């Protein structure tokens, strides 16, 4: 049995408690004073994709082999790739053009998931703005390329797995090459070689 009006008074007590509580209880305080304070982004956080390169050269070190899988799988179709060609006009395993239209990209991460070469990853940004609505939001290969170091900083746990995986593949490939070379040499006497 409650007295009419008690509900209102309970409400006043509750808002009064919050009024005081906002000064003393950190759980009641989620506001961040934006330009001065920035909340740390968690490791999994994602905004737009970038391209990973190994070594020092952002052009030659790109892992991308322009297989166009991401272009095909991208739901809003915001990726545009043209493979590079060598002098004789044959396609090289390298992108000549790799553009992402950020104004269309919806940060879904599907390109990252489908990439078999671990060459496209998700960037993180707390705030992201450009003055030019059209050109500024079309990112080219040079804007997208980031060193592997950067990737390791952004997603340490994920990068560790990727690095291990790539190292294993490289080892396999190189040992495969070595084996092939050895196999081609007649009279190779080393035991256990080329297994």
């Amino acid at each position: 049995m409650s007295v009419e009006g008690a509900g209102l008074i309970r409400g006043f007590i509750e808002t009064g408690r919050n009024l005081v509580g906002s000064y003393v209880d950190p759980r009641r305080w989620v506001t961040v004073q934006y330009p001065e304070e920035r909340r740390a982004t968690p490791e999994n956080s994602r905004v737009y994709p970038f391209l990973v390169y190994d070594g020092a050269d952002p052009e030659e070190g790109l892992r991308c082999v322009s297989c166009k899988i991401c272009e095909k799988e991208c739901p809003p179709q915001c990726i545009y790739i043209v493979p590079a060609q060598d002098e004789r006009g044959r396609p090289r395993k390298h992108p000549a053009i790799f553009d992402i239209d950020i104004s269309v990209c919806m940060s879904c991460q599907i390109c990252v998931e489908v990439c078999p070469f671990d060459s496209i990853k998700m960037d993180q940004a707390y705030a992201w703005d450009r003055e030019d609505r059209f050109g500024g939001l079309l990112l080219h290969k040079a804007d997208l390329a980031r060193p592997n170091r950067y990737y390791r900083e952004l997603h340490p746990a994920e990068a560790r797995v990727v690095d291990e995986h790539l190292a294993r593949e490289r080892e396999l490939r190189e040992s495969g090459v070595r084996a092939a070379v050895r196999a081609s040499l007649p009279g190779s006497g080393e035991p256990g070689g080329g297994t």
Partner: protein
Amino acid sequence: MNMEGILALTGWGGLRWVGPVELFERGPVWLRDWAVGWLPEGAKVWAEGLIPAVAVLAVFGLLFGLATVAERKLLGRIQNRPGPNRVGPYGWLQFAADGVKMLTKEDVVPRSADRVLHFLAPIVMLAPVALSLAVIPYGRDLVAADPRCGLLFFFAVGSAAEVAAFMAGWSSRNKYSLLGAMRAIAQMISYELPLVLSALTVVMMAGSLSLVEIVEAQSGYWWGVIPRWHVMTPWGLAGLLLFMAAAAAASNRAPFDLPEGESEIIGGFMTEYSGFKYAIFFMGEYFGMFAVSGLAVTLFLGGWQAPLAVLEAAPSYGWFFLKLGVMIAWFIWVRGTLPRLRVDHLLNFGWKYLLPLGALNLLVAMVWRGLGGWAFPGAGAVRWLACLAMIGLPAILWGRLLMRSRGWGPRVYRYAS
């Protein structure tokens, strides 16, 4: 500060040494007399009216600015966020930025609006509210005008706001504006009655319509500690509660802000106003809130009287504005807590609840006076409790009856098997 005394100008030409207490208390009056003294004889009578008017507008203009910031900051804290904190120290100059924004905004008038009425409505809104500020005594001898019928003047002038609301709603030629205007009329008319009725109790007890005299009737202390404010009596307490409920409705404040009702009818009668005209409306609403809060302070909270005899050293207008600040904070707290009523609930609440209780409160005040002659030990407490029960029990029971008759009440829920 020289604690021994300060050379002060008391009236035109009179110089004497006064203490700081007297300086602060009498300062505003001296300043006025001094300024008037410069003028030729014919202009003095005008200046004596104009200077307080300008002073009141200036003080309340500044208070309006500060109150908007305070409201947003307090609401923010109630809602666990900081509120405005960027412009000026701790955001207290936000009102200046808002003012600049309002002034530089485009003034949009709908093509089919009645331009003359549309232009006049904000002025008609602000002017009477500003007038009603004239009769409130802000301190000892600090009142812009003290007519014998001060309270009557207050209510008479204040009701002009209804005309303004309807002018704005009708001239905008917008359906939401019209709905808002109709709500405003219905609400202001129904709530003027309980407002007047609860003020009438005070008039009856104080025996005067002059607000200055009403404040003076509340001077002194019981047993030297409890101030003889009306709120300390059962009928005064009930009167204050009734008055505040009705005042919130009369000044369109939450939870009675239906004429604006921005979640239902966009902005009510202010929908088609922008820029400076909107600012004037806004100012009018705040002035209205100040006026009714000031009146509540005057009628029930002892006006400029200090709460304790030892605190009387502080200037009297300081006490008034402190109490006014408490009233404003109360309005803000209500706004941060309660949802809005519906228009039919609002009218029901006014006519069926506040009005009968207001009438009953008159009766309680009479009984209070009648029981004043009791002289047995503990008579004071018995009288107090008897009168409180006389108004409190009917208030609770009548409220319960009204709620239950419509089937409103807490519910118990079952769970599917």
